[in-house]
């Protein structure tokens, strides 16, 4: 090169001068962006050792539990070296034997760093290019280009628009999706709209009125996991922890199986859980579980001889509404459950033959299970949320409870009836290690409040249609068995709720990615494009953010001060704690910091969000956390704290004695109370009630189990979403978009409609709801196909791997077919939670988004009827869709 220069026909002197001038001119150009600038000088950390062979050497393990909402609530630990995650691990320090299992992470927890440090993270505040306050071009939402803006500019835009919209349109002009923006609007004294949804629970959303827990907020609704070892049978309606929660939820059930408990599972799919539990699988059509329950109750009634099947003593002492001799005082119609089963009111006895036609379960199978449900067997009846995630099954929880009560399977060892969900890792009963109190944080509020709209009506409400503004179901969900009476006290249950309209001009979407995770995506897009301003904030360019005008990058839990993860919603045996793992990513702020930044534009002091440092709050709650002692009655501090600990934390506090040192707790990330058979930590739901119902009433109005529950009927009739009145006793209703609806005029056995199949939405191991769907690792491992039965595939000329189009009356989506004999013919399975990827030209989604197929149907208590959806599946020949792993991340359109 030197020779080339020497030989070049140039004046070296002039060339050097020219280069010097150009270099100087460069220096005159503006600075590079901060993230691209290099610093030198004293602030730079000294060079460490040369690279070591094992990248993990010198790393520090910290607690980084999985914070996602699958139900597992498992331990993830990260080995952090200088801000880089060099290894991920899990619970490898607790013992792992039959009764006490390690709280190990699953494939999702193990891919956490590919989420938190993913290429697809939002890095900077962005503004849609063709949006301006004067000219919002709303129709370009979702297809516009983006411009980078500063936090200050973003905060100013949001301030100006919130102020303008609120002063122009007044109350309910701003709809918040997720909760994070509410703290700001509240402090600004702005009345806004927010939403509620039963999307997880289905009709198990408000069983407090029946005296039962919902399985999530109130999780003492079944016996504890060790008592399940005393069951002869577990009879379950939908029960698939192996797909929904993974980890210990399944492990515990396997333990029961190993102890000889027999499983009977009603489900349209022969699930992996049914397989590993050696369950007797009873294929059943989605949305028809109530009919099966009623038929089994009918058989028990029909075949009982002097108490051979029915626990008459229990019914007599503990129940009302089952027959005419046991009626609650408040019933408005003289109807009891047994006479309904016998067909006294509608001329239709609820025989197994009646149910067979609806459910697809052979009558003799129903008879067989009904006999198993007799009082001499120890049986747990578990009704999963999935079973209740169906339209017009608002009395399904009540039916399940009635069925269990008939066999006396309530309030004794080896017997219980209740919902299953996986929030508590399949481990019911009160907590054995409890979160303490952080104490007041010094935050101050305003007078702004939310009017609530149900997700099932939300997009139509944005588009100007009237909606039910009652918050009653949401309040009931929070209030539980002992609080529901107060929650309804302010409502007039004698008259129908009046619908209102709202001038919704702004959508502020924070967590929950509602545009993907809520029914009716197509309608949702229309709603987003109808308003004047949309703000989105989050980790990724989810659909909600993609259709926004301004997008704010938010930190993940890994970038925030430590916290209790899902306080109370975890396995009762353990308590997880997280640490700050890494610094915030690029320009991301926490949701609270984002609100403070915007609040400052309104003149609000950040102190309004709290004056006590986060570390102090966390310290306070850890210091006051308690763990149960061996006697099962008294409690002691979870952690011991020394003067040195307090100094290291930089907080105020007092040294104390406790079960384990605080430093160990923070390093491990969890504490586990070990169990053994015969310990004092067992729990049997409604045991005291069974023993003495007068002294220990349950939460119903009468204090007894109500086969006829007038309270629930009144609530549904006055505040609910259906016109046809509900009776106090549960009655089978033909579900909207259920099996019957696959026939013209609903006539079973007649001509099929253009949507002849039933579609269900199983939880999928690749995702926790919609979270993690963008991770290439997981896409490679799990392909997210459409599950279709061999028979239905053959009838449609569909073979394994074919690209198929799934159509409903609301939308169309593409998937590859997975042809299986494990699925009941007439039913297809489209996994829940895919991120939409819409072809704008054809209007067809290509990701398999279930919500692109669902509609905005408001029925009963506002149930999200995911497992009641009528579809058709056809071979799609216009294009072959690639495997998801071959698709680039976060492209929502192509």
């Amino acid at each position: 090169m030197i020779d080339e220069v020497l030989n070049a026909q140039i004046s070296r002197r002039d060339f050097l001068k020219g280069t010097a001038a150009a270099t100087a001119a460069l220096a005159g150009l503006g600075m590079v962006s901060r993230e691209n600038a290099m610093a030198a000088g004293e602030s730079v950390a000294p060079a460490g050792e040369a690279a070591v062979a094992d990248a993990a050497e010198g790393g520090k393990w910290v607690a980084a539990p999985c914070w996602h909402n699958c139900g597992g609530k498992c331990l993830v630990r990260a080995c952090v070296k200088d801000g880089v995650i060099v290894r991920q691990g899990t619970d490898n320090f607790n013992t792992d034997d039959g009764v006490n299992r390690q709280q190990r992470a699953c494939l999702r927890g193990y891919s956490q760093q590919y989420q938190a440090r993913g290429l697809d993270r939002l890095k900077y505040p962005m503004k849609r290019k063709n949006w301006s306050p004067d000219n919002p071009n709303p129709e370009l939402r979702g297809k516009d280009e983006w411009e980078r803006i500063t936090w200050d500019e973003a905060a100013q835009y949001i301030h100006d628009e919130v102020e303008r919209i609120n002063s122009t349109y007044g109350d309910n002009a701003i709809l918040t999706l997720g909760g994070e923006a509410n703290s700001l609007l509240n402090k600004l004294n702005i009345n806004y709209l927010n939403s509620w949804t039963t999307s997880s629970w289905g009709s198990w959303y408000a069983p407090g009125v029946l005296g039962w827990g919902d399985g999530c907020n109130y999780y003492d609704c079944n016996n504890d996991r060790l008592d399940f070892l005393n069951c002869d049978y577990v009879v379950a309606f939908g029960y698939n922890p192996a797909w929904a929660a993974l980890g210990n939820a399944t492990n515990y059930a396997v333990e029961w199986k190993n102890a000889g408990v027999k499983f009977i599972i009603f489900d349209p799919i022969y699930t992996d859980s049914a397989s590993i539990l050696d369950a007797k699988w009873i294929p059943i059509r989605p949305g028809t579980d109530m009919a099966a329950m009623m038929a089994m109750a009918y058989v028990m009634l029909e075949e009982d001889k002097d108490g051979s099947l029915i626990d008459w003593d229990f019914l007599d002492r503990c129940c009302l509404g089952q027959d005419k001799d046991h009626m609650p005082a408040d019933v408005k119609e003289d109807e009891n459950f047994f006479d309904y089963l016998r067909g006294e009111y509608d001329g239709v006895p609820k025989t197994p033959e009646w149910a067979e036609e609806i459910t697809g379960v052979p009558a003799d199978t129903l008879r067989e299970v009904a006999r198993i449900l007799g009082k001499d067997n120890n049986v747990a009846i578990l009704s999963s949320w999935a079973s209740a995630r169906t339209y017009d099954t608002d009395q399904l929880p009540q039916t399940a409870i009635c069925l269990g009560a008939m066999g006396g399977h309530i309030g004794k060892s080896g017997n219980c009836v209740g919902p299953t969900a996986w929030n508590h890792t399949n481990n019911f009963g009160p907590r054995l290690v409890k979160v303490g109190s952080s104490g007041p944080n010094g935050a101050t509020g305003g007078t702004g409040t939310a009017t609530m709209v149900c997700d099932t009506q939300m997009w139509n409400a944005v588009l100007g249609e009237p909606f039910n503004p009652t918050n009653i179901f949401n309040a009931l969900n929070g209030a539980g068995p002992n609080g529901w009476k107060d929650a309804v006290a302010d409502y007039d249950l004698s008259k129908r709720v009046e619908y209102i309209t709202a001038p919704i001009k702004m959508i502020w979407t924070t967590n929950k990615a509602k545009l993907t995770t809520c029914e009716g995506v197509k309608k949702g897009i229309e709603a987003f494009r109808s308003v004047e301003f949309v703000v989105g904030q989050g980790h990724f360019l989810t659909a909600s953010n993609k259709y926004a005008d301004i997008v704010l990058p938010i930190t993940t839990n890994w970038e925030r001060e430590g916290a209790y993860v899902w306080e109370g919603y975890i396995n009762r045996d353990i308590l997880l704690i997280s640490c700050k793992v890494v610094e915030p990513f690029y320009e991301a702020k926490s949701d609270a910091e984002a609100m403070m930044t915007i609040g400052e534009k309104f003149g609000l002091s950040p102190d309004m969000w709290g004056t006590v440092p986060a570390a102090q709050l966390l310290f306070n709650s850890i210091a006051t956390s308690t763990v149960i002692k061996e006697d099962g009655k008294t409690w002691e501090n979870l952690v011991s704290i020394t003067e040195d600990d307090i100094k290291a934390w930089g907080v105020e506090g007092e040294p104390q004695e406790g079960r384990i040192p605080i430093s160990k707790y923070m390093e491990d990330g969890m504490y586990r109370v070990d169990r053994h058979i015969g310990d004092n930590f067992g729990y049997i739901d409604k045991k005291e009630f069974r023993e003495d119902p007068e002294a220990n009433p349950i939460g119903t109005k009468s204090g007894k189990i109500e086969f006829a529950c007038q309270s629930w009927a009144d609530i549904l009739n006055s505040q609910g979403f259906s016109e046809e009145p509900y009776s106090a006793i549960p009655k089978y209703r033909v579900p909207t978009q259920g099996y019957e609806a696959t026939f013209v005029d609903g006539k079973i056995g007649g001509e099929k409609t253009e949507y002849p199949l039933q579609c269900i939405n199983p939880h999928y191991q690749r995702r926790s709801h919609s979270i993690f769907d963008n991770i290439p690792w997981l896409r490679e491992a799990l392909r997210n196909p459409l599950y279709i039965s061999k028979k239905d595939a053959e009838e449609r000329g569909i073979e394994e791997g074919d690209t198929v189009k799934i159509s409903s009356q609301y939308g169309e989506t593409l998937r590859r077919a997975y042809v299986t004999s494990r699925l009941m013919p007439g039913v297809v399975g489209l996994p829940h939670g895919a991120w939409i990827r819409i072809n704008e030209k054809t209007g067809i989604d290509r990701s398999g988004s279930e919500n692109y197929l669902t509609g905005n149907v408001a029925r009963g208590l506002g149930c999200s009827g995911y497992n009641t959806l009528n579809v058709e599946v056809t071979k799609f020949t216009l294009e072959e869709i690639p495997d998801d792993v071959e698709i680039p991340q976060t492209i929502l359109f192509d």
Partner: protein
Amino acid sequence: MNGEKREAMELLLANRFYLYSLLHKCFGREPDRQQLELLTGEQTGECFALLGGEVLEKVPAFLEQLREDLKDPDFPEQVKREYRMLFIGPEELPAPPWESVYMSEEAALFQEATLEVRQAYRAFGMQAEAYQRVPDDSLALELAFMSALAERALNAFRGDNRAEAERCLTGSADFLKKHLLVWIPKFLERMAASPTDCLYPQLCLILDSFLKKDAETAEELLKELQNGG
């Protein structure tokens, strides 16, 4: 070392300092008219062409074309748009400009490559201004590092501090070998998916050729310094 040779070496050292600084600016900030005018200045073409080779010899003609494009008042906006699509997001970036993406199979940032790169910076007393918030192995930061080392090498050479010049050139050559020369070709491959080609896809091609040439240049300068007595 005779005067002519010394002058040729200084020229090469100044040349690489300019080009690295220019590339750092180009990849490190949203482009505007002023930046594009500097890029298309006469000297830039000559500096690239001096190094020879198929691609770099064509740079003057390419810049000539850009000068033409710049007559369109909207052109800077088009280039800015391209920059955002390629380097800012928030949509999928066709060729993510971080080394770790190409060194591991995961679509993630802050990977082991990040630590290695950080170590190389620290050996010369440098670190990213937004340390810990941003991965150290972004294209712009790696170019910032190379530019800073090039400046130090030039200044050391001018000040007759041969040891320092050698140290900086060795550091540059090592960094090229272990990092930039490994991942930039893969990055360039993915750049083919760029939806537009106003400037950056071509600039990436130029970058790739320049880095290869500079590796040779640095080695040669180093050898000359070591043998230069």
